[in-house]
Protein backbone atom coordinates (compact mmCIF):
# COMPACT_ATOMS: atom_id res chain seq x y z
CA UNK A 1 0.00 0.00 0.00
CA UNK A 2 2.77 2.34 0.97
CA UNK A 3 4.65 1.45 -2.19
CA UNK A 4 1.57 2.07 -4.32
CA UNK A 5 1.06 5.47 -2.68
CA UNK A 6 4.70 6.29 -3.29
CA UNK A 7 4.45 5.36 -6.96
CA UNK A 8 1.24 7.39 -7.25
CA UNK A 9 2.96 10.35 -5.61
CA UNK A 10 5.90 10.16 -7.98
CA UNK A 11 3.59 9.93 -10.96
CA UNK A 12 1.52 12.87 -9.76
CA UNK A 13 4.56 15.02 -9.07
CA UNK A 14 6.18 14.14 -12.38
CA UNK A 15 3.00 14.74 -14.34
CA UNK A 16 2.49 18.10 -12.66
CA UNK A 17 6.08 19.10 -13.28
CA UNK A 18 6.18 18.12 -16.94
CA UNK A 19 2.64 19.30 -17.60
CA UNK A 20 3.65 22.73 -16.28
CA UNK A 21 6.68 22.78 -18.59
CA UNK A 22 4.51 21.72 -21.52
CA UNK A 23 1.92 24.37 -20.75
CA UNK A 24 4.61 27.03 -20.68
CA UNK A 25 5.92 25.82 -24.02
CA UNK A 26 2.47 25.68 -25.61
CA UNK A 27 1.01 28.68 -23.80
CA UNK A 28 -0.88 30.05 -26.85
CA UNK A 29 -2.86 26.80 -26.91
CA UNK A 30 -3.41 26.47 -23.17
CA UNK A 31 -4.20 30.16 -22.70
CA UNK A 32 -7.56 29.51 -24.30
CA UNK A 33 -8.42 27.18 -21.43
CA UNK A 34 -7.76 29.84 -18.81
CA UNK A 35 -8.69 33.02 -20.56
CA UNK A 36 -12.31 33.90 -20.80
CA UNK A 37 -13.63 32.41 -24.00
CA UNK A 38 -14.01 35.04 -26.69
CA UNK A 39 -17.56 35.71 -27.73
CA UNK A 40 -18.54 33.37 -30.55
CA UNK A 41 -18.24 34.97 -33.95
CA UNK A 42 -21.68 36.02 -35.06
CA UNK A 43 -23.13 33.56 -37.55
CA UNK A 44 -25.22 35.14 -40.27
CA UNK A 45 -28.82 34.05 -40.17
CA UNK A 46 -30.26 31.93 -42.93
CA UNK A 47 -32.28 34.75 -44.43
CA UNK A 48 -29.11 36.85 -44.84
CA UNK A 49 -27.34 33.94 -46.52
CA UNK A 50 -30.26 33.33 -48.85
CA UNK A 51 -30.52 37.03 -49.68
CA UNK A 52 -26.81 37.16 -50.52
CA UNK A 53 -27.14 34.15 -52.79
CA UNK A 54 -30.05 35.68 -54.65
CA UNK A 55 -28.04 38.91 -55.11
CA UNK A 56 -25.12 36.88 -56.41
CA UNK A 57 -27.31 35.06 -58.91
CA UNK A 58 -28.97 38.27 -60.04
CA UNK A 59 -25.57 39.85 -60.56
CA UNK A 60 -24.47 36.79 -62.49
CA UNK A 61 -27.54 36.96 -64.69
CA UNK A 62 -26.68 40.54 -65.52
CA UNK A 63 -23.10 39.58 -66.34
CA UNK A 64 -21.93 41.89 -63.63
CA UNK A 65 -19.39 41.31 -60.98
CA UNK A 66 -21.02 39.37 -58.23
CA UNK A 67 -19.43 41.30 -55.43
CA UNK A 68 -17.30 44.40 -55.02
CA UNK A 69 -14.52 42.22 -53.51
CA UNK A 70 -11.97 40.36 -55.59
CA UNK A 71 -13.41 36.97 -54.73
CA UNK A 72 -12.59 33.80 -56.58
CA UNK A 73 -16.18 33.49 -57.70
CA UNK A 74 -16.17 37.04 -59.08
CA UNK A 75 -12.91 36.43 -60.93
CA UNK A 76 -14.26 33.17 -62.38
CA UNK A 77 -17.41 34.98 -63.42
CA UNK A 78 -15.37 37.64 -65.19
CA UNK A 79 -13.26 35.01 -66.95
CA UNK A 80 -16.45 33.20 -67.96
CA UNK A 81 -17.88 36.42 -69.38
CA UNK A 82 -14.70 37.17 -71.36
CA UNK A 83 -14.71 33.61 -72.70
CA UNK A 84 -18.30 33.97 -73.90
CA UNK A 85 -17.54 37.28 -75.60
CA UNK A 86 -14.52 35.70 -77.33
CA UNK A 87 -16.51 32.71 -78.47
CA UNK A 88 -19.69 34.56 -79.34
CA UNK A 89 -21.73 32.61 -76.83
CA UNK A 90 -24.83 34.39 -75.56
CA UNK A 91 -26.17 33.17 -72.27
CA UNK A 92 -28.97 34.23 -69.97
CA UNK A 93 -29.37 32.48 -66.69
CA UNK A 94 -32.43 33.47 -64.68
CA UNK A 95 -32.90 32.14 -61.19
CA UNK A 96 -36.49 31.00 -60.67
CA UNK A 97 -36.37 29.14 -57.36
CA UNK A 98 -33.80 28.93 -54.60
CA UNK A 99 -34.21 26.96 -51.39
CA UNK A 100 -31.45 27.09 -48.85
CA UNK A 101 -30.46 23.69 -47.49
CA UNK A 102 -27.72 22.78 -45.06
CA UNK A 103 -25.47 25.54 -43.72
CA UNK A 104 -22.31 24.52 -41.90
CA UNK A 105 -19.19 26.35 -40.74
CA UNK A 106 -16.03 25.66 -42.75
CA UNK A 107 -13.31 27.32 -40.73
CA UNK A 108 -13.16 30.72 -39.08
CA UNK A 109 -15.61 33.18 -40.63
CA UNK A 110 -16.39 30.86 -43.51
CA UNK A 111 -19.49 28.78 -44.21
CA UNK A 112 -20.57 26.25 -46.78
CA UNK A 113 -24.21 26.22 -47.80
CA UNK A 114 -26.09 23.96 -50.16
CA UNK A 115 -29.07 25.08 -52.18
CA UNK A 116 -31.76 23.51 -54.30
CA UNK A 117 -32.25 25.69 -57.31
CA UNK A 118 -34.13 25.93 -60.52
CA UNK A 119 -33.03 28.38 -63.22
CA UNK A 120 -33.93 29.10 -66.78
CA UNK A 121 -31.01 29.07 -69.17
CA UNK A 122 -31.12 30.45 -72.68
CA UNK A 123 -27.93 29.86 -74.58
CA UNK A 124 -26.95 30.37 -78.16
CA UNK A 125 -23.69 29.56 -79.84
CA UNK A 126 -22.33 31.11 -83.07
CA UNK A 127 -24.31 29.83 -86.03
CA UNK A 128 -26.87 28.16 -83.78
CA UNK A 129 -30.33 29.06 -82.60
CA UNK A 130 -31.01 30.01 -79.00
CA UNK A 131 -31.98 27.03 -76.86
CA UNK A 132 -33.84 27.14 -73.56
CA UNK A 133 -33.24 24.78 -70.68
CA UNK A 134 -34.35 24.29 -67.12
CA UNK A 135 -31.32 23.85 -64.91
CA UNK A 136 -32.28 22.05 -61.71
CA UNK A 137 -30.39 20.49 -58.88
CA UNK A 138 -28.16 21.25 -55.91
CA UNK A 139 -25.29 23.68 -55.67
CA UNK A 140 -22.64 24.20 -53.04
CA UNK A 141 -21.69 27.74 -52.12
CA UNK A 142 -18.71 28.77 -50.03
CA UNK A 143 -19.20 32.12 -48.35
CA UNK A 144 -16.75 34.23 -46.40
CA UNK A 145 -17.73 36.81 -43.81
CA UNK A 146 -15.95 40.13 -44.38
CA UNK A 147 -17.00 42.17 -41.41
CA UNK A 148 -20.76 42.19 -41.56
CA UNK A 149 -20.86 41.43 -45.29
CA UNK A 150 -21.06 38.02 -46.87
CA UNK A 151 -19.00 37.24 -49.92
CA UNK A 152 -19.57 34.30 -52.24
CA UNK A 153 -16.12 32.79 -52.61
CA UNK A 154 -16.97 29.79 -54.71
CA UNK A 155 -19.93 28.00 -56.18
CA UNK A 156 -20.06 24.52 -57.66
CA UNK A 157 -22.90 22.42 -59.00
CA UNK A 158 -23.30 19.08 -57.25
CA UNK A 159 -26.20 17.01 -58.59
CA UNK A 160 -27.67 18.87 -61.55
CA UNK A 161 -29.94 18.21 -64.47
CA UNK A 162 -30.26 20.15 -67.73
CA UNK A 163 -33.74 19.73 -69.22
CA UNK A 164 -34.71 21.27 -72.61
CA UNK A 165 -37.73 23.58 -72.38
CA UNK A 166 -40.43 23.81 -75.06
CA UNK A 167 -38.47 21.58 -77.42
CA UNK A 168 -35.59 23.93 -76.99
CA UNK A 169 -37.36 26.77 -78.82
CA UNK A 170 -37.13 30.09 -77.12
CA UNK A 171 -40.52 31.79 -76.77
Amino acid sequence: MRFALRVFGVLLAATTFFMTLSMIEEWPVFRQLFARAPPPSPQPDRSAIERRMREFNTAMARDERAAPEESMAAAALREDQQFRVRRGIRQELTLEELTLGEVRPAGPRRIVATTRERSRLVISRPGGVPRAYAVKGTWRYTLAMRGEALEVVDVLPEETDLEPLDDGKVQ
Partner: protein
Amino acid sequence: MRRVLGILGSRRFADLLLLSMAGWYALLLAWSQTSPLAIVQRIGTMWAFRGLYAALAVNLFACFLIELPRALRRSAPRTVPPGEFPPPGHEEVATPDWDGLDTAEVSLRRRAYRTRREGVRLVAERGRFAPVLGMLFHLILPLLLPAAVLSLANRQTFSMDVGEGEVVEPLPGGPRARIGVERIDPRYLGGEIYFTQLTAAVSVDGAPAREIRINDPVTVDGGDLRIVSMGFMPGLAISDPDGALLDRAFVKAGLFPPGTEAELTFAGSPHRLLTSFYPDAERGPDGEPRNATLNLRRPLLKVRAVRGKLPISTAVLSPGESMELEGFHLGLEEARLWVKLEWVRDPSAHLALWLCAAALMLLGAKVFWPRTTWIVEESDGGVRAARRVEAPAALSDEGGADVP
Protein backbone atom coordinates in the same frame (compact mmCIF):
# COMPACT_ATOMS: atom_id res chain seq x y z
CA MET B 1 30.91 16.16 -6.40
CA ARG B 2 30.70 12.49 -5.52
CA ARG B 3 27.41 13.17 -3.78
CA VAL B 4 25.97 14.89 -6.84
CA LEU B 5 27.21 12.01 -9.02
CA GLY B 6 25.63 9.57 -6.57
CA ILE B 7 22.25 11.32 -6.79
CA LEU B 8 22.34 11.64 -10.56
CA GLY B 9 23.30 8.00 -10.99
CA SER B 10 21.00 6.62 -8.30
CA ARG B 11 18.31 4.07 -8.88
CA ARG B 12 15.77 6.35 -7.21
CA PHE B 13 16.43 9.00 -9.83
CA ALA B 14 16.11 6.34 -12.55
CA ASP B 15 12.81 5.17 -10.99
CA LEU B 16 11.51 8.73 -10.96
CA LEU B 17 12.43 9.29 -14.60
CA LEU B 18 11.08 5.94 -15.79
CA LEU B 19 7.83 6.37 -13.89
CA SER B 20 7.47 9.88 -15.30
CA MET B 21 7.99 8.53 -18.80
CA ALA B 22 5.50 5.73 -18.19
CA GLY B 23 2.92 8.26 -16.99
CA TRP B 24 3.54 10.49 -19.95
CA TYR B 25 3.37 7.65 -22.43
CA ALA B 26 0.03 6.63 -20.87
CA LEU B 27 -1.20 10.21 -21.37
CA LEU B 28 0.04 10.16 -24.97
CA LEU B 29 -1.79 6.89 -25.53
CA ALA B 30 -4.99 8.47 -24.21
CA TRP B 31 -4.37 11.53 -26.40
CA SER B 32 -3.81 9.37 -29.47
CA GLN B 33 -7.35 8.04 -29.14
CA THR B 34 -8.84 11.49 -29.62
CA SER B 35 -6.21 13.51 -31.46
CA PRO B 36 -4.49 13.11 -34.83
CA LEU B 37 -1.10 11.43 -34.85
CA ALA B 38 0.66 14.66 -35.78
CA ILE B 39 -0.57 16.34 -32.59
CA VAL B 40 0.52 13.40 -30.45
CA GLN B 41 3.94 13.44 -32.13
CA ARG B 42 4.17 17.16 -31.47
CA ILE B 43 3.38 16.64 -27.79
CA GLY B 44 5.90 13.81 -27.65
CA THR B 45 8.71 16.02 -28.94
CA MET B 46 8.08 18.95 -26.61
CA TRP B 47 10.94 20.23 -24.44
CA ALA B 48 9.59 18.48 -21.37
CA PHE B 49 10.04 15.14 -23.12
CA ARG B 50 13.43 16.07 -24.50
CA GLY B 51 14.47 17.13 -21.00
CA LEU B 52 13.28 13.78 -19.73
CA TYR B 53 15.38 11.91 -22.28
CA ALA B 54 18.39 14.10 -21.50
CA ALA B 55 17.93 13.47 -17.76
CA LEU B 56 17.74 9.74 -18.42
CA ALA B 57 20.98 9.94 -20.42
CA VAL B 58 22.66 11.79 -17.56
CA ASN B 59 21.34 9.21 -15.09
CA LEU B 60 22.68 6.32 -17.16
CA PHE B 61 26.07 7.95 -17.67
CA ALA B 62 26.43 8.78 -13.96
CA CYS B 63 25.39 5.24 -13.09
CA PHE B 64 28.01 3.95 -15.51
CA LEU B 65 30.73 6.01 -13.83
CA ILE B 66 29.69 4.72 -10.41
CA GLU B 67 29.28 1.11 -11.39
CA LEU B 68 32.22 0.55 -13.73
CA PRO B 69 34.93 0.17 -11.02
CA ARG B 70 32.71 -2.29 -9.12
CA ALA B 71 31.98 -4.22 -12.30
CA LEU B 72 35.69 -4.43 -13.06
CA ARG B 73 36.33 -5.70 -9.54
CA ARG B 74 33.63 -8.34 -10.02
CA SER B 75 35.27 -9.41 -13.26
CA ALA B 76 38.59 -10.26 -11.65
CA PRO B 77 39.62 -13.95 -11.86
CA ARG B 78 38.20 -15.81 -8.89
CA THR B 79 40.41 -18.10 -6.82
CA VAL B 80 38.71 -20.92 -5.00
CA PRO B 81 40.39 -21.92 -1.71
CA PRO B 82 41.23 -25.62 -1.55
CA GLY B 83 39.39 -27.84 0.86
CA GLU B 84 35.62 -27.96 1.02
CA PHE B 85 33.86 -29.52 -1.99
CA PRO B 86 31.66 -28.26 -3.50
CA PRO B 87 33.04 -24.79 -2.69
CA PRO B 88 30.58 -22.22 -1.27
CA GLY B 89 28.12 -20.96 -3.89
CA HIS B 90 28.76 -23.94 -6.20
CA GLU B 91 26.51 -26.91 -6.83
CA GLU B 92 27.79 -30.37 -7.61
CA VAL B 93 27.00 -31.61 -11.10
CA ALA B 94 27.16 -35.22 -12.29
CA THR B 95 29.61 -35.58 -15.22
CA PRO B 96 29.80 -39.30 -16.12
CA ASP B 97 31.55 -38.56 -19.43
CA TRP B 98 34.59 -37.12 -17.72
CA ASP B 99 37.02 -39.80 -16.57
CA GLY B 100 39.83 -37.44 -15.69
CA LEU B 101 40.85 -33.78 -15.57
CA ASP B 102 42.20 -33.95 -19.13
CA THR B 103 38.88 -35.06 -20.66
CA ALA B 104 37.07 -32.46 -18.53
CA GLU B 105 39.46 -29.76 -19.77
CA VAL B 106 38.97 -30.73 -23.42
CA SER B 107 35.20 -30.79 -22.97
CA LEU B 108 35.10 -27.42 -21.23
CA ARG B 109 37.44 -25.74 -23.73
CA ARG B 110 35.19 -26.96 -26.52
CA ARG B 111 32.42 -25.02 -24.78
CA ALA B 112 34.49 -21.80 -24.79
CA TYR B 113 35.72 -22.00 -21.20
CA ARG B 114 39.16 -20.74 -20.25
CA THR B 115 40.81 -23.31 -18.05
CA ARG B 116 43.64 -23.30 -15.57
CA ARG B 117 45.06 -25.75 -13.06
CA GLU B 118 45.12 -24.79 -9.39
CA GLY B 119 46.88 -27.59 -7.58
CA VAL B 120 44.83 -30.75 -7.98
CA ARG B 121 41.87 -28.82 -9.32
CA LEU B 122 40.84 -27.72 -12.76
CA VAL B 123 39.18 -24.30 -12.76
CA ALA B 124 37.24 -23.25 -15.86
CA GLU B 125 35.54 -19.90 -16.40
CA ARG B 126 33.57 -18.17 -19.09
CA GLY B 127 31.58 -14.95 -19.19
CA ARG B 128 34.00 -13.35 -16.75
CA PHE B 129 33.32 -9.90 -18.12
CA ALA B 130 29.52 -10.21 -18.08
CA PRO B 131 29.21 -7.44 -15.43
CA VAL B 132 31.31 -5.09 -17.57
CA LEU B 133 29.22 -5.95 -20.63
CA GLY B 134 26.15 -4.86 -18.68
CA MET B 135 27.86 -1.56 -17.89
CA LEU B 136 28.83 -1.05 -21.53
CA PHE B 137 25.22 -1.74 -22.53
CA HIS B 138 24.10 1.06 -20.23
CA LEU B 139 26.84 3.35 -21.60
CA ILE B 140 25.49 2.92 -25.13
CA LEU B 141 22.05 4.16 -24.13
CA PRO B 142 23.23 7.71 -23.26
CA LEU B 143 25.39 7.64 -26.41
CA LEU B 144 22.23 7.10 -28.43
CA LEU B 145 20.95 10.52 -27.41
CA PRO B 146 23.74 12.53 -29.10
CA ALA B 147 23.39 10.20 -32.09
CA ALA B 148 19.69 11.09 -32.25
CA VAL B 149 20.49 14.81 -31.91
CA LEU B 150 23.09 14.54 -34.69
CA SER B 151 20.54 12.72 -36.80
CA LEU B 152 17.94 15.44 -36.31
CA ALA B 153 20.50 18.15 -37.11
CA ASN B 154 22.04 16.56 -40.22
CA ARG B 155 19.18 14.58 -41.69
CA GLN B 156 18.45 15.39 -45.34
CA THR B 157 15.08 14.31 -46.70
CA PHE B 158 13.69 14.78 -50.17
CA SER B 159 10.48 13.41 -51.68
CA MET B 160 9.57 13.10 -55.32
CA ASP B 161 6.63 11.68 -57.21
CA VAL B 162 7.79 9.76 -60.25
CA GLY B 163 5.54 8.19 -62.84
CA GLU B 164 6.10 4.81 -64.43
CA GLY B 165 8.53 5.30 -67.32
CA GLU B 166 9.58 8.73 -66.13
CA VAL B 167 13.13 9.94 -65.46
CA VAL B 168 13.70 12.78 -62.99
CA GLU B 169 16.75 14.98 -63.36
CA PRO B 170 18.67 16.03 -60.20
CA LEU B 171 16.69 18.61 -58.23
CA PRO B 172 17.91 21.12 -55.62
CA GLY B 173 17.98 19.50 -52.18
CA GLY B 174 17.64 16.02 -53.64
CA PRO B 175 20.09 13.31 -54.66
CA ARG B 176 22.61 14.28 -57.31
CA ALA B 177 21.50 11.55 -59.68
CA ARG B 178 18.98 10.91 -62.43
CA ILE B 179 16.24 8.70 -61.03
CA GLY B 180 14.12 6.65 -63.39
CA VAL B 181 11.20 4.41 -62.56
CA GLU B 182 10.82 1.66 -65.14
CA ARG B 183 8.06 -0.39 -63.54
CA ILE B 184 5.72 -0.23 -60.56
CA ASP B 185 4.09 -3.37 -59.26
CA PRO B 186 1.60 -3.13 -56.39
CA ARG B 187 -0.01 -6.29 -55.01
CA TYR B 188 -3.01 -6.18 -52.73
CA LEU B 189 -4.26 -8.56 -50.08
CA GLY B 190 -7.23 -10.40 -51.55
CA GLY B 191 -7.65 -7.68 -54.15
CA GLU B 192 -8.52 -5.22 -51.40
CA ILE B 193 -6.82 -1.98 -50.51
CA TYR B 194 -4.07 -3.35 -48.28
CA PHE B 195 -0.63 -3.76 -49.80
CA THR B 196 1.07 -7.10 -49.56
CA GLN B 197 3.86 -5.89 -51.76
CA LEU B 198 4.83 -2.71 -53.53
CA THR B 199 7.89 -2.87 -55.73
CA ALA B 200 9.39 -0.49 -58.25
CA ALA B 201 12.21 -1.01 -60.70
CA VAL B 202 14.37 2.07 -60.22
CA SER B 203 17.40 3.00 -62.29
CA VAL B 204 20.00 5.46 -61.12
CA ASP B 205 22.02 7.49 -63.66
CA GLY B 206 20.95 5.14 -66.44
CA ALA B 207 22.32 2.01 -64.76
CA PRO B 208 20.28 -1.21 -65.08
CA ALA B 209 17.15 -0.97 -62.94
CA ARG B 210 17.08 -2.47 -59.48
CA GLU B 211 13.89 -3.58 -57.81
CA ILE B 212 13.18 -1.81 -54.53
CA ARG B 213 10.47 -2.43 -51.96
CA ILE B 214 9.02 -0.30 -49.21
CA ASN B 215 11.58 -1.60 -46.71
CA ASP B 216 14.33 -2.37 -49.18
CA PRO B 217 15.87 0.89 -50.39
CA VAL B 218 18.60 1.53 -52.91
CA THR B 219 21.63 3.66 -52.05
CA VAL B 220 21.81 6.87 -54.07
CA ASP B 221 24.27 9.71 -53.47
CA GLY B 222 25.06 8.53 -49.93
CA GLY B 223 21.41 8.21 -48.93
CA ASP B 224 18.66 5.63 -49.02
CA LEU B 225 16.00 5.91 -51.70
CA ARG B 226 12.82 4.06 -50.78
CA ILE B 227 9.21 3.81 -51.87
CA VAL B 228 6.74 5.55 -49.61
CA SER B 229 3.44 5.28 -51.44
CA MET B 230 1.92 5.06 -54.88
CA GLY B 231 -1.07 6.25 -56.82
CA PHE B 232 -2.55 6.73 -60.26
CA MET B 233 -2.14 9.47 -62.82
CA PRO B 234 -4.32 9.82 -65.87
CA GLY B 235 -2.62 11.51 -68.81
CA LEU B 236 -4.81 14.24 -70.31
CA ALA B 237 -4.50 16.28 -73.48
CA ILE B 238 -6.55 19.33 -74.34
CA SER B 239 -6.78 20.91 -77.74
CA ASP B 240 -8.47 24.10 -78.90
CA PRO B 241 -11.29 24.27 -81.47
CA ASP B 242 -8.69 24.47 -84.26
CA GLY B 243 -7.21 21.19 -83.12
CA ALA B 244 -4.01 22.74 -81.78
CA LEU B 245 -2.71 21.05 -78.66
CA LEU B 246 -3.00 23.44 -75.73
CA ASP B 247 -1.69 21.30 -72.94
CA ARG B 248 -0.77 17.73 -72.15
CA ALA B 249 -0.07 16.55 -68.63
CA PHE B 250 -0.32 13.74 -66.17
CA VAL B 251 -2.38 14.63 -63.13
CA LYS B 252 -2.41 12.86 -59.79
CA ALA B 253 -5.72 11.23 -59.01
CA GLY B 254 -6.96 10.75 -55.49
CA LEU B 255 -9.18 7.74 -54.86
CA PHE B 256 -10.00 8.16 -51.19
CA PRO B 257 -12.46 8.81 -49.80
CA PRO B 258 -14.64 7.35 -52.58
CA GLY B 259 -16.35 10.13 -54.51
CA THR B 260 -13.35 12.42 -54.21
CA GLU B 261 -13.09 14.79 -57.14
CA ALA B 262 -9.88 16.41 -58.28
CA GLU B 263 -10.30 19.85 -59.79
CA LEU B 264 -8.35 20.77 -62.92
CA THR B 265 -8.24 23.94 -64.95
CA PHE B 266 -6.34 24.83 -68.09
CA ALA B 267 -5.08 28.12 -69.43
CA GLY B 268 -7.31 30.06 -71.80
CA SER B 269 -10.55 28.55 -70.57
CA PRO B 270 -12.89 29.30 -67.66
CA HIS B 271 -13.89 25.65 -67.40
CA ARG B 272 -13.28 23.71 -64.22
CA LEU B 273 -12.92 19.97 -64.66
CA LEU B 274 -14.00 17.86 -61.70
CA THR B 275 -12.51 14.42 -62.23
CA SER B 276 -12.87 11.04 -60.54
CA PHE B 277 -10.52 8.24 -61.51
CA TYR B 278 -11.34 4.53 -61.51
CA PRO B 279 -8.31 2.25 -62.10
CA ASP B 280 -10.36 -0.94 -62.47
CA ALA B 281 -13.83 0.27 -63.29
CA GLU B 282 -17.07 -1.61 -63.41
CA ARG B 283 -20.59 -0.26 -63.68
CA GLY B 284 -22.76 -0.25 -60.59
CA PRO B 285 -26.52 -0.92 -60.58
CA ASP B 286 -27.13 2.78 -61.23
CA GLY B 287 -24.84 2.69 -64.28
CA GLU B 288 -22.24 4.83 -62.56
CA PRO B 289 -18.63 3.62 -62.60
CA ARG B 290 -17.10 2.24 -59.44
CA ASN B 291 -13.84 0.53 -58.56
CA ALA B 292 -13.73 -3.26 -58.61
CA THR B 293 -10.09 -3.42 -57.44
CA LEU B 294 -7.13 -1.09 -57.17
CA ASN B 295 -5.25 -2.72 -60.02
CA LEU B 296 -4.71 -0.60 -63.10
CA ARG B 297 -6.68 -2.80 -65.50
CA ARG B 298 -9.73 -0.98 -66.86
CA PRO B 299 -9.12 2.71 -66.20
CA LEU B 300 -11.94 5.20 -66.53
CA LEU B 301 -12.02 8.92 -65.88
CA LYS B 302 -15.29 10.60 -65.05
CA VAL B 303 -15.20 14.29 -65.91
CA ARG B 304 -17.72 16.93 -64.88
CA ALA B 305 -17.09 20.17 -66.70
CA VAL B 306 -18.36 23.34 -65.08
CA ARG B 307 -18.31 26.93 -66.32
CA GLY B 308 -19.27 29.55 -63.77
CA LYS B 309 -22.05 27.84 -61.87
CA LEU B 310 -23.31 26.00 -64.93
CA PRO B 311 -22.77 22.30 -65.49
CA ILE B 312 -21.56 22.12 -69.08
CA SER B 313 -21.11 18.41 -69.69
CA THR B 314 -20.31 15.11 -68.03
CA ALA B 315 -18.47 12.21 -69.63
CA VAL B 316 -16.82 8.96 -68.67
CA LEU B 317 -13.65 8.44 -70.68
CA SER B 318 -11.61 5.35 -71.41
CA PRO B 319 -8.02 5.71 -72.65
CA GLY B 320 -8.11 7.01 -76.20
CA GLU B 321 -11.52 8.69 -75.82
CA SER B 322 -12.22 12.38 -75.68
CA MET B 323 -15.05 14.75 -74.87
CA GLU B 324 -16.18 18.01 -76.43
CA LEU B 325 -16.13 21.01 -74.18
CA GLU B 326 -17.65 24.07 -75.83
CA GLY B 327 -15.19 23.86 -78.67
CA PHE B 328 -12.29 22.37 -76.73
CA HIS B 329 -11.48 18.67 -76.83
CA LEU B 330 -10.37 16.91 -73.69
CA GLY B 331 -8.86 13.45 -74.20
CA LEU B 332 -7.73 10.74 -71.83
CA GLU B 333 -4.56 9.46 -73.49
CA GLU B 334 -3.47 6.85 -70.97
CA ALA B 335 -3.25 6.10 -67.26
CA ARG B 336 -0.12 5.20 -65.34
CA LEU B 337 1.03 4.49 -61.83
CA TRP B 338 3.28 6.81 -59.89
CA VAL B 339 5.33 6.24 -56.76
CA LYS B 340 6.39 8.62 -54.07
CA LEU B 341 10.11 8.09 -53.52
CA GLU B 342 11.80 9.39 -50.42
CA TRP B 343 15.52 9.96 -50.27
CA VAL B 344 17.04 10.16 -46.80
CA ARG B 345 20.71 10.90 -46.16
CA ASP B 346 21.49 10.52 -42.50
CA PRO B 347 24.99 9.32 -41.59
CA SER B 348 24.09 9.48 -37.88
CA ALA B 349 21.31 6.96 -38.45
CA HIS B 350 23.93 4.32 -39.23
CA LEU B 351 25.80 5.25 -36.07
CA ALA B 352 22.60 4.94 -34.04
CA LEU B 353 21.81 1.62 -35.75
CA TRP B 354 25.24 0.19 -34.96
CA LEU B 355 25.00 1.44 -31.38
CA CYS B 356 21.60 -0.28 -31.04
CA ALA B 357 23.00 -3.50 -32.52
CA ALA B 358 25.98 -3.34 -30.16
CA ALA B 359 23.68 -2.68 -27.21
CA LEU B 360 21.56 -5.70 -28.09
CA MET B 361 24.62 -7.91 -28.45
CA LEU B 362 25.99 -6.75 -25.10
CA LEU B 363 22.63 -7.28 -23.42
CA GLY B 364 22.32 -10.71 -25.02
CA ALA B 365 25.82 -11.66 -23.91
CA LYS B 366 25.09 -10.47 -20.39
CA VAL B 367 21.82 -12.38 -20.14
CA PHE B 368 22.62 -15.54 -22.11
CA TRP B 369 26.35 -15.77 -21.38
CA PRO B 370 26.47 -15.36 -17.58
CA ARG B 371 29.69 -15.78 -15.66
CA THR B 372 30.01 -19.52 -15.05
CA THR B 373 32.74 -21.25 -13.12
CA TRP B 374 33.51 -24.96 -13.00
CA ILE B 375 35.68 -26.60 -10.34
CA VAL B 376 36.75 -30.12 -11.25
CA GLU B 377 38.91 -32.40 -9.13
CA GLU B 378 39.93 -36.04 -9.32
CA SER B 379 38.17 -38.50 -7.06
CA ASP B 380 38.40 -42.28 -6.72
CA GLY B 381 39.32 -43.04 -10.33
CA GLY B 382 36.94 -40.47 -11.70
CA VAL B 383 36.18 -36.76 -11.26
CA ARG B 384 33.71 -34.71 -9.33
CA ALA B 385 32.61 -31.34 -10.64
CA ALA B 386 30.84 -28.29 -9.25
CA ARG B 387 29.40 -25.32 -11.12
CA ARG B 388 28.48 -21.76 -10.22
CA VAL B 389 26.33 -19.63 -12.49
CA GLU B 390 26.16 -15.97 -11.51
CA ALA B 391 22.99 -14.14 -12.47
CA PRO B 392 23.43 -10.56 -13.69
CA ALA B 393 23.86 -8.34 -10.64
CA ALA B 394 21.10 -5.95 -9.67
CA LEU B 395 21.89 -2.42 -8.66
CA SER B 396 21.33 -1.26 -5.14
CA ASP B 397 19.47 1.90 -4.18
CA GLU B 398 22.74 3.71 -3.88
CA GLY B 399 23.85 2.69 -7.30
CA GLY B 400 25.93 -0.21 -6.00
CA ALA B 401 25.40 -3.87 -6.67
CA ASP B 402 23.46 -6.17 -4.35
CA VAL B 403 25.93 -8.98 -4.91
CA PRO B 404 29.10 -8.43 -2.91
